[in-house]
């Protein structure tokens, strides 16, 4: 196995891990990190392709390297935007999860009681989570399979909104 192939396989593994993370992790921050993992996989693949396509006397094909830098900048700004949104979300609602989104019935007339209610829900969610982690120190990873770690699983106030929603 030559070097570009090895790096190509590593890239495939990174993309796969990242994809798994984006799909299964309920926390937005972890999704953002997983997105970066996919990005790194793609960039690594591009690097491997640049190396494979090197002309005589060159270390690598320069075009992919130029594109790569642009891609990294774009991915970086995407991450910055996502983290900024996440911070704003935390400031606005006191929660950094996307649980409880119910687009069909958003607040229209009086947003205040809605937020207060959500705050209460949030408190309870956090309590539940710490309890559950105590009782089961090695929970299955996927939140959307039955018996997963979704902390709102047994929360009666969230039952109707569906578990695994985000």
């Amino acid at each position: 196995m030559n070097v570009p192939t090895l790096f190509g396989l590593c890239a495939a593994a990174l993309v796969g891990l990242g994809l798994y993370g984006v799909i299964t992790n309920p926390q937005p921050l972890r999704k953002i990190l997983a997105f970066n993992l996919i990005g790194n996989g793609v960039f690594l693949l591009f690097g491997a392709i640049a190396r494979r396509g090197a002309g005589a006397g060159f270390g690598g094909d320069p075009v992919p390297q130029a594109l790569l830098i642009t891609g990294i900048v774009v991915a970086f700004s995407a991450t910055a935007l996502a983290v900024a949104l996440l911070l704003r979300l935390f400031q606005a609602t006191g929660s950094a999860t996307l649980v409880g989104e119910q687009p069909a019935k958003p607040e229209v007339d009086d947003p205040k009681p809605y937020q207060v209610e959500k705050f209460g829900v949030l408190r309870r969610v956090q309590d539940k989570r710490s309890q559950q982690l105590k009782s089961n120190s090695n929970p299955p990873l996927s939140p959307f399979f039955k018996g997963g770690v979704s902390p709102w699983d047994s929360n009666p106030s969230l039952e109707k909104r569906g578990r695994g929603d985000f």
Partner: protein
Amino acid sequence: MPRPVPVEDMTTPGGLLLVLAVLLPFVGVLAGLVLGGRYAQRVALVTLLPGLGLAIAIADALARSGDTLVYLLGGWAPPLGVALRADGLAALMLVTTAVVICGIAVYARTDFAMPPGAGEARAPLVFWILLLAVWGSLNLVFVSGDLFTLYVALELLTFAGVPLVCLDGSGETLRSALRYLLFALLGSMLYLLGVVLLYGAYGTLDIPLLAMRVRPEPAAWAAVALMTTGLLAKTALFPLHLWLPPAHAGAPAAASAVLSALVVKGSFFLIVRLWFDVMPDVVTLPSAQLLAGLGAGAILFGSVVALRQERLKLLIAYSTLAQIGYLFLMFPLAFDAMSSELQRGDALTGGLLQAISHATAKAGMFMAAGLIYKALGHDRIGELRGIARALPISVLAFAVGGVALMGLPPSGAYVAKKLLLDAAAETGQWWWDLVLQAGGFFTTSYVVLVVAHALWPADCPVKLNAPVPRLQEGAALALALCSMLLGLAAIGPVPLATLLLAPKELWSAVLLVLGGGVLALGLGHRLPPVPGYVAIMSPVRTGAVAVARVIERADGVLRRWPVAGLSLVVLVIGFVAAMLS
């Protein structure tokens, strides 16, 4: 197979216009950002007319030379350099975008005016800057001649669109914005992966060069499957639509209009470029059928869930979902069985016409809904009675936009539907004929539902909370009329008049409205008190509502993140499988 080699080692006359069309909005963005405050709005408004002029100048130059406009950046020819190109597709979309942006800007002047006294307010500043940013990135999407530049343009479009969702800064909208951003990023990574694979296999990303070199083989199949799926996630085609309804319904009306009318068209346009220009002979008929099948799913789910909504803006957001599905029906119809490749023909014209008429009509509808919301303080469909008397022009704008989408003559959607139906008959794919007709009935049903509520006389006169400026109503109506009269512009008044006088056309229009009305009575969530309705419809409605509930629930499941993520993966595999067969 060999194709004619495009001779492109030089910039064509008029090529500089393409650079200006991209530069102008971005110069506006920077100027607005630096000057800040009150100047952001002025800069944006000043940019409008030159921008519109540039788009028209590009279309004019293209019509005169009859050949693609090319500009080589820095004088470097592809594959080493990057070229900007504008063909007929691009010029049409450029003009449409400019017109819609101008309409939205006129509308937003009232909503996003800087408050008197304050030096700077966040929402107006951000809105005007982002409006220009959306415009600039869309122009870049339309004129880019290379897949990587397209990636950058698409990311710019997403970055400009996401903050529009959460302009009011409430928790709910921030959630929808984050959800939109994360899912769109997932899509763009898939797209980039496809781009990397293509570069690895063919050593170029320039569209004409790539189109010459690409062969139907595993690398190209994998690339087109990844790129298409990634773009579908950004376009929010069913079942990857988890972010669209909350994002489009939660934003302020002017922002919703930008998002719904224009931003989703960017990634749609890219799919068209990819399938028709880059690899028309790599994609196969089954893969085109799969794409159109998803479109049919979108029409069914989007329309039925739209009928079940309580709020007008959510209804329009779900209608966008259905209309996006409609756009994808053209792919199998454009497939030429003889040469087994996608052909630019009537089907593509029809699809593009549909995209343009949706852009204008939907912007007008969202703006009208925003006015109704502002005047009433709510947009619950069940409580719209009497609003037509209080806000006649707004309701008229909504109705005209709706009728234009339904495909009644002389709207653009009417001509589009006719072209697509002809293509379906020509290629012998009768099932898409059915889907096209069903789509028309569904669109009619939710438009009729809302208009019937608005026209129903109220028990007591409606009290308006806020005055509605004529200018805003005029902007909404003008965009809706653009969509309505697009058919006239497309085929000319005389052939259209002869078409309209045919009894068959009249009959089908009556049938469309009647069928839509029956659907609305059967499935609508809130109905106006129609006399004699209980006796006729009650048993039918019980069954229909049960079906609608099932669809609503399925939609809820599909919009969960893990399910949507899995659908993404399944779709990639599905597209590869469809290419193999």
